[in-house]
């Protein structure tokens, strides 16, 4: 992990309230699921950095796909090519690779797309399930159609694209069609992760989830972003954000 100032090479809207930013910085090696903590330079406001999962890292350029939700991400969305951001990273523990005999199944909902897409692009194989509220919420549609041998299924709640419904329904349907052992990768709302974990159990699949929790530091000192696991509280930022789904105490 290191701290550096990184030049914004590109920053543009790619879907409703969703931006894709490219930063010039050296962050090798990188594992999908890992994230960066970003802040504006030359100002104390906003006070805390924002954690963003890395979409890709290649030849000194980091891609970040992020949803514009509050004040911090709005300010990030407003940064222009040539401006600098302060970056801390790469942080956290990423996804593990699928075993050669395993079929990889990726499922993303809400703000969970970046690490999932990163993983699909890394392996270049498997089934990718994207869940969104509506068609306009889905970024990088063309790019997702062209990832090696990855087969994409889309669900929208309003039926404007792909299957009408939620991503976990599609996950159940996909799992039914697969004969070989499966490795599920999930990132999204807590309810979706819990359901993915349950389906993994039902189908005897392995499952890794990337957990989202509000953070302050991102490097393990403040103990803000804890998640309950079978071995007690774990810090999402350093012991995660990727966890084996069977270790998480999902609660109600």
């Amino acid at each position, binding site marked *: *992990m290191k*701290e550096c100032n990184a030049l914004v090479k590109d920053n543009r809207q790619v879907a409703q309230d969703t931006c894709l930013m490219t930063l010039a910085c050296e962050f090798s090696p990188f594992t999908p699921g890992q994230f960066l903590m970003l*802040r504006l330079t030359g100002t*104390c*406001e*906003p*006070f*805390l*950095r924002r954690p963003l999962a890395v979409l890709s890292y290649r030849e000194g350029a980091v891609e970040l796909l992020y949803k514009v939700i509050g004040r*911090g991400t709005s300010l990030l969305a407003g940064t222009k090519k040539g401006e600098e951001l*302060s970056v*801390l990273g790469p942080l956290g523990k990423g996804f593990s690779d699928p075993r050669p005999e395993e079929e990889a199944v990726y499922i993303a909902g809400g703000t969970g797309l970046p690490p999932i897409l990163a993983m699909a692009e890394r392996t270049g194989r498997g089934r990718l399930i994207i869940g969104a509220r509506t068609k306009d919420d889905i970024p990088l549609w063309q790019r997702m159609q062209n990832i090696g041998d990855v087969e994409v299924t889309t669900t929208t709640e309003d039926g404007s694209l792909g299957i009408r419904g939620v991503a976990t329904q599609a996950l159940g349907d996909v799992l039914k069609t697969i004969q070989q052992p499966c490795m599920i990768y999930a990132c999204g709302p807590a309810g979706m992760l819990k359901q993915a974990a349950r389906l993994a159990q039902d189908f005897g699949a392995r499952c890794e989830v990337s957990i989202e*929790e*509000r*953070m*302050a*530091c991102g*490097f*393990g*000192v*403040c*103990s*803000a*972003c*804890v*998640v309950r696991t079978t071995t*007690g*509280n774990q810090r999402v930022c*350093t012991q995660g954000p990727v966890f084996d789904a069977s270790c998480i105490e999902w609660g109600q």
Partner: protein
Amino acid sequence: MDITTRLAPGLCLKNPVLSASGTFAYGEEFSRMFDLSLLGGVVTKGISLHSKEGNPTPRVCETSCGMLNAIGLENIGVDAFIAQKLPFLGTFDTEVVVNFFGTDEDEYVHMAQKLDIEGVSAIEMNVSCPNIKKGGIEFGKDPQILNRLVAQVRKSTTKPLIVKLSPMVTHIGEMALAAQEGGADALTCSNTFPAMAIDENTWKPMLGNITGGLSGPAVKPIALRIVWEVSRQAAIPVIASGGVTSWRDAVQFLLAGASAVEIGSFSLRDPLCFGGIIQGLIRYMQDNGLESITEIIGKLRTP
């Protein structure tokens, strides 16, 4: 140039910059980013007799120029701390200040006894905790209770004893004197400020614990006033804690009467800030022809 600062008999820091409790964990993560030996001292996360799980999430929330936290004093407990964390801190050339708290007087005393060991440079008492046996009033809110607690802890340890005062009192000077008379060697001013934040969309509090402690630049002017007030009344050294983000802030706290400064929330945002603040302080002294840090401490020019 002399930037050493004396906090107690047997406790002299090589420079006046320390980490603050709760934002530095037990030093391991920061040690991977910079050499902890550059610090005047490390103040550990608050330790209790038994491990503590802490509060439900969300535990933090950003606010204007600062943040709220309600971590709930999650920690591994004193025995695990001594076995697993203290030896590592001992490998650095810096003072190790162990922050601790209890739920009743006996627990504070027991903690002080357990921490009266090699490797601990000083202990910092958090008195902003509810006294379980006295109906939940904070130890730090009643001068008599505070005085008695400090006196009991004083008798139980040979270590320099620092009392971290609660800012939520009517007369902070009175609390400072109560701690001083109880035998405190130094005072940390002060702790976070009880506060809250609400999400107007969900109608819910932003923290799992509903309320939390406010810290960061937002509280600095209040902390500055507290340091000034306490250092005028108490005879013992004061350690400032509250919104330090730069060497300028550090100088201001020294002028107000602090002998050292702790850096807390800002190091969550900028983990490498410590070196720059120490260097800035040295440059400030050079630029102003100052030979010793004591030429700044408490030298506020008032009309």
